[in-house]
């Protein structure tokens, strides 16, 4: 019972940490980065969707879009609350950055993050109208589901619990997107939808990151990752391809 064990060995053996007082420095940094990536992506996603609310073709769609704007901001807030236990100034964090900023539609940045925040690269591309937003939301919503399933098992329990609470809310956003997409298909603008699928498919795919085995091994030893980027991407590709095919759309 009194045998000594380093925290690194504890983590490598699947140990769980529960409070900020004894997270090792490098673990702390990786954990903060993971949280910042989520918060920045949610805030950027929410901000991008806010403009779309006014383009909704009907009241039901308007409510769905407004709800997504609200809930993504609220999910960012939940993770910020975990960050603030590490002495992050949450209020300043949420307002320090222009979350609506986007690059040009044809910018090609691969998986590179911007210089000033940690949002996933895909959130740097602008949405072009309602149809485009619905497609992006469906593809990304399903990617978020795959990623949250992975991150719901991180070794920092307060964050794992937060992600477990967020997962069903994000899953619902993807359901709303599917509903919206089916409605758009009924009215028959298949070509426009397919163009959006062609645009977003590779960009959402890149949000799973590229294979950096060394870094992945470090994160795995910390209990912050379990499944490789490639495997997660594979999972998303399979599930989403089936969904699109079912809807009568093609995967590029």
């Amino acid at each position, binding site marked *: 019972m009194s045998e000594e064990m380093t925290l690194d060995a504890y983590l490598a053996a*699947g140990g769980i*940490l529960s409070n900020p007082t004894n997270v090792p420095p490098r673990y702390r*940094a990786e954990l903060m980065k993971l949280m910042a990536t989520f918060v920045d992506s949610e805030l950027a996603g929410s901000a991008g969707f806010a403009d779309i609310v006014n383009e909704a073709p009907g009241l039901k769609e308007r409510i769905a879009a407004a709800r997504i704007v609200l809930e993504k901001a609220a999910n960012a807030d939940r993770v910020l609350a975990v960050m603030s236990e590490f002495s992050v100034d949450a209020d300043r964090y949420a307002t320090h950055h222009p979350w609506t900023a986007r690059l040009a539609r044809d910018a090609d940045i691969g998986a590179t993050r911007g210089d000033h925040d940690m949002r996933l690269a895909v959130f740097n591309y602008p949405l072009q109208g309602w149809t485009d937003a619905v497609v992006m939301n469906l593809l990304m919503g399903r990617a978020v589901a795959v990623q949250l399933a992975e991150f719901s098992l991180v070794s920092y329990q*307060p964050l794992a619990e937060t992600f477990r609470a967020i997962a069903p809310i994000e899953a619902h956003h993807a359901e709303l997107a599917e509903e919206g997409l089916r409605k758009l298909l009924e009215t028959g603008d298949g070509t426009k939808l397919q163009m959006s699928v062609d645009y977003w498919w590779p960009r959402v795919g890149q949000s799973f990151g590229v294979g950096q085995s060394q870094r992945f091994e470090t994160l795995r030893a910390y209990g912050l990752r379990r499944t490789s980027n490639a495997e997660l991407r594979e999972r998303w590709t399979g599930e989403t391809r089936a969904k699109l095919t079912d809807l009568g759309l093609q995967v590029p």
Partner: protein
Amino acid sequence: MAQFHDLQVTDIQKTIRDAVIVTLKPAEGSDEAFAFTQGQYLTFRRKFDGEELRRSYSICAGLDDGVLQVGIKRVEGGAFSTFANEELQVGDTLQAMPPMGSFHTPLDGDQQRHYLGFAGGSGVTPVLSILKTTLAREPKSRFTLVYANRGVSSIMFREELEDLKNLHMGRLNVIHILESDAQEIDLFTGLVTQEKCTDLFRSWIDIDTVDTAFICGPEPMMLGIAAALRAHGMEEAQIKFELFASAQPGRLKHKIAPGETSSSANQASTAITLDGATQTITMGKDISILDAALQNAMDAPFACKAGVCSTCRCRVTEGEVEMVANHALEDYEVEKGYVLSCQSYPLTDRVAVDYDQ
């Protein structure tokens, strides 16, 4: 951000030879800030040899006890715990942050649940808070506690647990596992390992009826118990952990070596340690330490680059830097030499920073 409040020590009880139960009364106006949830902890601060030290201790009182109490076991070489056990007096004032932590699950008086707690040594403090509160507020629920100690003489709250068993007849079951003292039942001697848990689940604990498990103890014990619980089909969300690592440093290991005074040259030689490797780079003094590291292909951690999130925190071990903005680090961290590398520029010609500390 974290705010410390004054708390007056109103009572100190020795529970075993090297542990005290300290009762605290928040200073006027702070009562509300110290309303706690069962299983939470307090973080104290105190200066030792001029340097601030922070330590966290779990609250051992239940929500209905009407007091704020923490249990502090003396740790070999631990500055704060030794102070609390040997010098602290009734009437003294301590400083602590409001209660924190998420080592709890919501209670519902209508529910009939079975909770299983595992505690190793002083890890019993938050578990005691949880079990007292649960038995009082969920009258149909029951609680099984597996409590590991070296020997009979090192069992904290032994009598209190006996009293609770009598008070909540049939709803509290305590299994003492003693490392060195022999007991009537062989199974109850030794360490709480995965195998021990599996044996307990075979004959003494009906694991299939357990809704939630709480574990607080040393690292190897937590790993063994968690493995046994998972092997018996418990989900991640059903297992709550609390760990206060025995390895957390009680005192500062390093003093910052004074560097040479600044010179007019605008180049600095900076040694950057990351993941155990040190790289020395020549950089302009108008470039942040973080950017210099990134430009030299080091995978230094960062997120906001605005001095807000503290992901890029590192420690200056030699020389001096200027931190132009800081919205995240607290004064005591800055005193210890921590800086936000995205906001820090070399002042001296030689600088060394460490991301691993």
